C-alpha cells in the first residue's frame, strides 16, 4: 500500500553532514595532482641546475689545468728554481688567476697568495688565502707537489660556481614552495567550487527524500558536466514523481473504491441480522460482522501507515507535553492491566517533556506499545511505563517481563503485517509496531527493542522542544 517509488522514509537515514573540503575527493585528486607537479617540477629544476653547475665546474677546472700545464711546460723541470721565473711572468701577465709557488719549507717563492699546506689536487680556498683581497671571493685551484718538495698552486675565482650553486638552491626552494602553495590553494578553491555544486545536489536529494517530490535540481547558465548531471537527475525525478503520484492516486482510488463494497457488505449484514430467526445463522452473521470489522481495521491501519510514511511534516503539529499524554494513558491502562492479572508499574516524568508533535499519533504510539505488552505477556508478568528527559531527548520506556523477542527477530517485527509464530493466537494485525516506528520517525525520533532480561524493553526516543 505504501508508495513504491518513493524514498523509503521508514528506513533510518544517516544524518546529513556537510562535506568537508579536505575530505572531498576533488580536493584529494587536485592535491595529489599538485603533489605530482611539485615532484616533477623540482626534478626538472634539479636536473637542469646540476647540469649547469657541472658544466661550469668542468670549464673552470679545464681553464685552471691548462694554466698549470702551461706553467709546468714552460719551466721544463718540475722544481722550484725552474718555476720561479715562469711564475713571476705569469703573475704579472695573467690577471684574474691566483698563483702560489712555495718551497719545501712552505716559504712563498712567487705568487699572490699566502703559503698553503701542500695538498695535491683540487681545492676550494677561501678569500683569506689571497694576498690582496678587495672582496671576499673564494679561489678554486689545483695543487701540484714538485720534485724538490716544493708546491705549485694555480687557481681562479670560484665565485661564478658558488653563485650558481646558491642560485640553484634558492630556485629549488622557491619553486618547491610555490608549487606547493599553488597546488594546495588551487585544490582547495577548486574543491570548494565543486563541493558547493555537489552540496546543492545532495541537499536537494535530501529534501526530495523527505517527501518533497516536486523539488528539482537548479540548472545554471553554463553547459558543464554538472548541468548535464542535474538535467539527467531532474528527468529521473520527473519520472519518479509521476510514478509516485500515480501510485498514490491508485492507492487513494483503491481506498475509496474498496470502502464502498465493504460498506455495502456491512449494510447487507445489518439487513440479514434484522431478518434472521435461526440462532446458528445469527452466530454466523456475528462472525461475519467481526471479520468485516477486522478487514476494515487492517485496511484503515495500512492506509494510516502509508499516509504516515508519506508525510513530510507532522500533521496538525503542536507542542505536546508527553508527560501529560503518558499520565492519561497510565490512568487509562493501569487499572486494565491490573484487572487482567498483570503487574503494573508507572513512573512518571517529574517535569514536563514538551515535543512538537501530533497528540493523537503520540498517544497511539505509546498505546500500541502498552497493548502489545498486555497481549503478549502472561498473567503475573510486570509491565512498566516510564519516561524521563535525557539530554535533548524524551525517553519513553515500555518494558515487560514476558517472553521477550529473540534478538534476530527484533528488527523484523517492525515489518508490516509480520507476526511471529509465537503470537499467532494473540489479537492484532501486525501493523502496530510498524505504526509505532512510523510515528516515532515522523517526530524525528526512533524506537529500539532491547532485552529486558527477561522480557522486552521498547525504548522510544523523541527530540524535545528546546525550552526557551
Amino acid at each position, binding site marked *: 500500500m505504501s508508495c513504491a517509488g518513493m524514498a523509503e522514509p521508514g528506513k533510518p537515514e544517516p544524518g546529513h553532514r556537510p562535506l568537508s573540503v579536505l575530505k572531498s575527493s576533488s580536493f584529494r585528486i587536485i592535491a595529489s595532482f599538485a603533489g605530482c607537479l611539485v615532484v616533477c617540477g623540482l626534478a626538472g629544476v634539479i636536473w637542469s641546475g646540476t647540469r649547469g653547475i657541472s658544466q661550469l665546474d668542468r670549464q673552470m677546472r679545464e681553464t685552471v689545468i691548462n694554466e698549470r700545464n702551461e706553467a709546468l711546460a714552460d719551466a721544463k723541470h718540475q722544481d722550484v728554481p725552474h718555476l720561479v721565473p715562469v711564475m713571476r711572468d705569469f703573475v704579472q701577465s695573467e690577471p684574474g688567476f691566483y698563483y702560489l709557488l712555495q718551497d719545501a719549507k712552505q716559504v712563498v717563492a712567487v705568487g699572490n697568495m699566502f703559503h698553503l699546506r701542500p695538498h695535491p689536487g683540487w681545492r676550494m680556498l677561501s678569500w683569506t688565502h689571497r694576498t690582496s683581497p678587495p672582496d671576499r671571493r673564494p679561489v678554486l685551484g689545483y695543487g701540484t707537489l714538485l720534485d724538490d718538495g716544493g708546491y705549485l698552486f694555480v687557481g681562479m675565482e670560484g665565485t661564478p660556481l658558488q653563485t650558481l650553486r646558491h642560485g640553484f638552491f634558492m630556485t629549488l626552494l622557491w619553486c618547491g614552495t610555490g608549487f606547493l602553495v599553488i597546488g594546495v590553494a588551487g585544490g582547495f578553491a577548486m574543491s570548494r567550487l565543486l563541493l558547493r555544486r555537489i552540496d546543492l545536489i545532495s541537499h536537494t536529494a535530501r529534501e526530495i527524500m523527505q517527501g518533497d517530490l516536486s523539488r528539482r535540481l537548479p540548472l545554471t547558465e553554463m553547459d558543464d558536466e554538472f548541468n548535464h548531471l542535474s538535467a539527467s537527475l531532474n528527468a529521473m525525478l520527473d519520472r519518479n514523481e509521476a510514478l509516485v503520484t500515480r501510485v498514490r492516486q491508485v492507492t487513494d482510488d483503491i481506498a475509496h473504491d474498496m470502502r464502498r463494497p465493504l460498506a455495502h457488505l456491512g449494510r447487507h449484514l445489518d439487513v440479514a441480522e434484522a431478518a434472521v430467526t435461526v440462532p446458528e445463522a445469527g452466530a454466523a452473521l456475528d462472525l461475519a460482522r467481526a471479520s468485516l470489522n477486522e478487514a476494515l481495521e487492517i485496511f*484503515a*491501519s495500512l492506509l494510516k501507515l502509508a499516509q504516515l510514511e508519506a508525510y513530510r511534516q507532522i500533521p496538525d503539529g503542536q507542542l505536546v507535553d508527553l508527560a501529560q499524554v503518558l499520565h*492519561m494513558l497510565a490512568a487509562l491502562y493501569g487499572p486494565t492491566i491490573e484487572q487482567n492479572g498483570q503487574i503494573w508499574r508507572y513512573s512518571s516524568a517529574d517535569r514536563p517533556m514538551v515535543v512538537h508533535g501530533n497528540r493523537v499519533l503520540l498517544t497511539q504510539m505509546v498505546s500500541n506499545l502498552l497493548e502489545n505488552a498486555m497481549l503478549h505477556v502472561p498473567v503475573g508478568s510486570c509491565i512498566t511505563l516510564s519516561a524521563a528527559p535525557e539530554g535533548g531527548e524524551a525517553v519513553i520506556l515500555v518494558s515487560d517481563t514476558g517472553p521477550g523477542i529473540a534478538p534476530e527477530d527484533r528488527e523484523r517485527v517492525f515489518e508490516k503485517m509480520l507476526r511471529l509464530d509465537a503470537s499467532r493466537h494473540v489479537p492484532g494485525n501486525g501493523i502496530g509496531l510498524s505504526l509505532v516506528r512510523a510515528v516515532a520517525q515522523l517526530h524525528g525520533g526512533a524506537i529500539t527493542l532491547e532485552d529486558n532480561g527477561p522480557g522486552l524493553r521498547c525504548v522510544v526516543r523523541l527530540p524535545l522542544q528546546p525550552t526557551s
Partner: protein
Amino acid sequence: MSQPPCASSLQGASPVRRVLFAEDDRALAIYASEAMAGWGLQVTCAEEGLRGKALALEGGWDCIVLDRRLPGVDGLSILKEIRLSGLECPVLFLTTMDGVRDRVEGLRSGADDYLVKPFALPELKARIETLLRRAEQPLNTARLVFADLELDLVRREVFRRGVKLYIQSQELRLLEYFMRHPLIVISRAMLLQHVWGIDFPVHTNLVETHVSRLRERLGREAPALLHTVKGQGYVLRGHG
C-alpha cells in the same frame, strides 16, 4: 437489530427533528436515511455539494450530517460556510478512515463530531442522538442529575440518594459523559474518542474495565444504572 432498544429517546414530546444528510453514495444515502426515518427523524438528502450547501445555508436544521467528499463543493468548505453564516446547528462530519488530517480539520472548521466511514447504523444513531441532546442542553450547567444520581461538575463530587460516592478521575469523566447523554446507547468507540481522545483501534478491554469499575463505585447493591447493550455499547438508563 435495526429496531434499537431505545428508539424512544429520539421521539418523545418534542417536534420532529429535521436532519440534512449530504452524501454522494446513493446506496448509503437511501439506506441511512431510511434508517433515520425509522428513528423518527425527518431526513433530507443531498447527493451533490452545491445543493447540499444551498440546503444547509437555508437553516432550520436540527442536525447536519456532512460527507467530506462531495462532488461540486467538498464537505469542509460547506462546513466553513455554515459556520461563517452564523448557523449553530450541530454538524456530524463523515470522514474516510485514512483521513488523519480531515478529522482535525473538520473539528477545527466547526464540526461537533466526526464519524469514520464505513460506519454501523447504531453508531450513526448514537452520534446523532448525542448531538441533538447536546443542542438542547444548557452549556454551562453546574450539576447533572439522572434518576437518583447527582454530579456536581464544579466540585467534581457524585452523590447517589444524597450519599457521597468516591469515584476516581477516569471513572468520573466516564460518568460525566454518560450523564450528559442519558438514554443513548454509547459505543466503545465513542467512549474512547470522546472521553479519552483515542480514535484508533484498541484491542484490549480498556472500556470494559473502566465501566465495570464505575459500576462498582455506583454501588453493587443499588439498582443498576449502567446497562450493557450487547454488540452496541452501554447506556445510562433508569430502573423501573
